[in-house]
């Protein structure tokens, strides 16, 4: 469509504003983490400077457990993703291939129950976790994170499995395959894109989550976001360079991941909320 010059200028202005709003703040933090301390405070922020790694050095000297909490975050996020994908493929398969009133009811339960505010269950879980010796453990966070996303995962997987022709299942069954073989040989490989779509959400959530990590961990299972929040609070006269270094180490991997799997993210977002 042809467009007037003011129209183009207006759209260009909106795009510039959108970038300044969404990406520039993140860019500023990563860039500033490489600036010598006095340069961080220069206004307007300089794009050209002599890069330094001093803040990263201070980070690992002053907060030696930061690297450890990053490892915790990685182990917890990956395990939660595995647990969620495993449960979701099984559930998604059943919801895709079977029908029944009880089944519809259980699907409804699945979608409805995840709408409860997570903070409500912290109160009863606190003593239970203590009793089961699960407070401050990987297991507790892994299960919590997987649970809050298993509904979305199952619905995403159901949508993807719906797209695999049932004739494939039937042909394999006639050839003598058991249902588990059908699942493993046909459904699992063909629904791989769905698994990626489901993984994006739970991984990003588990890597970044603050509320549960803050309430249920103290030392052993502490995650990176909790430590960064401590750095923010415990420093008298905030050491911004140090904070930026820590924030960059935490955010860069997950931002890259989201950029790489962008199209799955978009597919999952629409199918997981608007389509149920």
């Amino acid at each position, binding site marked *: 469509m042809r467009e007037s010059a003011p129209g183009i200028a207006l759209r260009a202005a*909106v795009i510039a504003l959108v970038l300044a709003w969404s990406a520039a703040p993140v860019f500023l933090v990563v860039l500033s983490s490489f600036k010598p301390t006095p340069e961080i405070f220069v206004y307007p922020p300089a794009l050209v400077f002599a890069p330094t790694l001093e803040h990263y050095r201070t980070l690992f000297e002053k907060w030696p457990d930061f690297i450890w909490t990053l490892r915790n975050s990685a182990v917890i996020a990956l395990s939660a993703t595995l647990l969620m994908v495993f449960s979701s493929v099984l559930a998604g398969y059943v919801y895709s291939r079977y*029908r029944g009133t009880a089944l519809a009811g259980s699907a*409804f339960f699945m979608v409805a129950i*995840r709408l409860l*505010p997570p*903070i409500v269950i912290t109160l009863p879980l606190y003593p239970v976790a203590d009793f089961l010796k699960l407070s401050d453990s990987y297991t507790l966070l892994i299960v919590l994170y*997987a649970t809050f996303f298993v509904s979305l995962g199952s619905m995403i997987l159901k949508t993807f499995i719906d797209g695999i022709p049932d004739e494939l299942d039937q042909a394999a069954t006639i050839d003598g395959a058991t249902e588990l073989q059908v699942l493993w040989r046909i459904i699992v490989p063909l629904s791989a894109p769905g698994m990626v779509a489901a993984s994006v959400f739970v991984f990003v959530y588990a890597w970044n989550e603050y509320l549960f990590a803050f309430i249920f961990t103290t030392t052993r299972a502490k995650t990176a976001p909790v430590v960064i929040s401590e750095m923010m609070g415990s420093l008298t006269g905030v050491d911004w360079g140090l904070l930026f270094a820590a924030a960059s180490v935490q955010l860069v991997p997950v*931002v890259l991941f989201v*950029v790489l799997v962008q199209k799955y993210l978009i597919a999952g977002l629409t199918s997981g909320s608007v389509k149920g």
Partner: protein
Amino acid sequence: MRKFGLSQFAMLAPAQGMLLLVIALPSLYVFWLSFTESSYGTSPVFVGWENYAAIWNDRYFWRALVNTLVVINIIVYGELVLAFVIALVFVKGVPFRRVLLAMVLTPYAISEVVAIVIWKFMLDPNVGSLAKAMLAVGLPEISWATNPVHGLGLVSVISIWLHLPFTFIIIYSAMLAVPKELYESAIVDGATRWQSFRFITLPGILPAVFVALIFRYIFAFRLFSEVWLLTAGGPARTTEVLSIYLYKQSFTYASFGKGAATGWVMVLVSGVFAAIYLRLLYRRGFQRDA
């Protein structure tokens, strides 16, 4: 279709089992707790409606409730308007679409903690670039730690920043899904640009927009980390929202009964939104699917 049997039940067990054990049963236990009083190391004693009466008469509860309602409305509608404008620009076609899209989606990958770091730095009155830029054009300093309006305002901005990618994607996808032929025949029929927006785009995206809106209400209602990390409810408990109030009742003041009662108030309020949301989903063919 095939018959549902024991092995299908077993396949559903991991997912349904987790939801039941981690969310459903604890929520019911909270319901019981809300009629009892207990603290660290004491067992629950039945007190009837006392906890509900106590929070009903607590002005901090009402303040938290009002704060929550005001803030989530600002967040949800702020997101909606911004997402709408950005989607309109994107749907017309933008250069480097994939790159631009990735940049718009960036905040989705950022944790609440890092978002707070970013915004605190940008608005720091001594060192922040945004604070200095605002000062230069005559805007006031944002004193989130001392001024509750500024505190909750900044919480809303940060929350919009974090969740705009979600709302944007929903609206953008809905706009893309409107059939191109409708616009073409509208042009043939001599419709103005405003008319084709008003009579084709808007009705086409409205159902998706409405579902997204309710969905965001449900999730915005959970608001905790942004407030906790920015103001922790202060100064003088003026910026508390319901989840902060619940946290403080339960873990700071160690009154599990009042915390549980607050929890059930939250369940009921989000239950109302959830009911609307689920009804909308059913109308859109959820029933046919599952």
